[in-house]
């Protein structure tokens, strides 16, 4: 009977599927907030502001969550933020981020918002609540998509 068992191939590794990629799709074919990423490529961290009720919205939106208007404009948040809280990932990073361990994550106050962000180039012991942090833009080597981070 054992001779009748047919061996079939199974790939040892499967390419990381798009849905397990944490970075947002940023081109106009995939999102209506492509402008955010275009602005970021120019070094500007921006978000949407409602022209009707003046609410500044984060994350960027296509409809104002405060008044349901879809008449929104892009506003610049600046490049300097203040560290509200922080920690350091020592273990348990998701796929794709394991090689970065250990790394710092923080909550950054900027432009009246509270953004979560990677805090680059620093260890936990060297950070303080209230510390100033500077905007940094990172680009994915494989496809050129960009995202924001902060550095000391």
């Amino acid at each position, binding site marked *: 009977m054992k001779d009748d068992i047919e061996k079939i191939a199974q790939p040892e590794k499967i390419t990381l599927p798009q849905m*397990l990629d*944490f*970075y*947002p799709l940023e081109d106009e074919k995939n999102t209506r907030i492509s402008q955010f990423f275009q602005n970021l490529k120019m070094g500007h961290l921006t978000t949407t502001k409602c022209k009707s009720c003046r609410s500044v919205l*984060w*994350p960027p939106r296509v409809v104002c969550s405060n008044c349901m208007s879809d008449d929104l404009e892009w506003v610049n948040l600046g490049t300097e933020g203040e560290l*509200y*809280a*922080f*920690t*350091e*990932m*020592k*273990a*348990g*990073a*998701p*796929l*794709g*981020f*394991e090689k970065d361990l250990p*790394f710092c*994550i*923080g*909550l950054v106050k900027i432009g009246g*918002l*509270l*953004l*979560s*962000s*990677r805090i680059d180039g620093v260890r*936990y012991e060297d950070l303080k*609540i209230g510390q100033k942090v500077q905007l940094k833009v990172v680009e994915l080597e494989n496809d050129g998509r960009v*995202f924001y*981070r902060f550095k000391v």
Partner: protein
Amino acid sequence: MRKVAVVGGGATRCGKREATWRELAQEAGKAMFDSVMNLSPNDVEALLVGAAQPERFTFQVHVAPLVAECLGIKPTKVIAKTELMCASGQAALRYAWACVASGLCDVAVAFGVEKMYMQNMAEAQTNMTCVLDREWDGVNAMSAPPFFAMTAQRHMHEFETTEEQMALVSVKNHHYSTMNPIAQFQKEVSIEKVLQSFMIAPPLKLFDCSGITDGAAGVVLVPAEDASKYTDTPMLIAGSGQANIGNAVNNLASISEWIPLKLAVREALRTAKISLADIDIAELHDCFTISELMEYEAFGWCDRGKGGKFIEEGEPYIGGTVAVNPRGGLLGCGHPLGATAILQSLDIMKQFQGDVPSGRLVKDAEVAVAHNLSGAANVHSLMVYRRG
């Protein structure tokens, strides 16, 4: 609205189990049906299955019919999976309760299953990083441990809460879980052991965090007037509360105070027509030690910022102001996401029946609350139970 009773239920042993998702469901289903007299799978009209991420952990969706098939249930009124991440089981309970209370059906099962141990645990960590807003928080590797680490840091910064006070929560809940045979963790931990455990995300260490857990559980809900058909010792659902504010970290009401929990508590007390002092047992969502301290505060057992002092003075132990997590909590029992709320309700029922070891028995308990938070503590869900 009809009064609703829980008339029995069953659960698996929790932990790293050598069993598949559907085997866990079968184990819990058998335990559930074995525990309720005069009930067969054919009587079940509604089946709600709490499951947080079966599509990621087990690569299986449409899981409610899978449970129904495994247990021989052929629902005729309602069937669905309920997902509310760490509160998925409570979502199942709430909908099962609503189904019976509304008169839509007379027998509903609230079930919960989670299989979290995977061949590649990095994949499990990845799954847990799409809970918060994946594109804007998850992308920064913001999963529960770093989020609650920063919550703890803010609490320490604003209120001088200490790592030792947080460790006390772990010590207490591991103590009670040694007396719970289905708990994942069966050993006492000391303050020193917690403080010296592996740093996950400072200030949170390994024993500040609930485990990764496989487990399943189910309970049966019927109209209170029918309860005596199934058991002599039913548990009544007396009230509930649930509130949500925001999702992404930018849109939370506060980091260091859980305002949606305060709202949910107010609603739960109002609907159950009780005051805080009436609560004998509180099964609180101690996903991290800091969580339980903040929950003492949001419930109002102590002032804001005084959660650490509350446990230092022994108040959340049996015999104190309120018995918090005499089951062993998530820290001691493990946290099989979709099953957790069902496990809490089952243990409360056993407390009311006097069917737990004396070391963790809350004598003559009449009223209990069960609480689950989910996401960035932006959703809080509460059920109030009363001895039937």
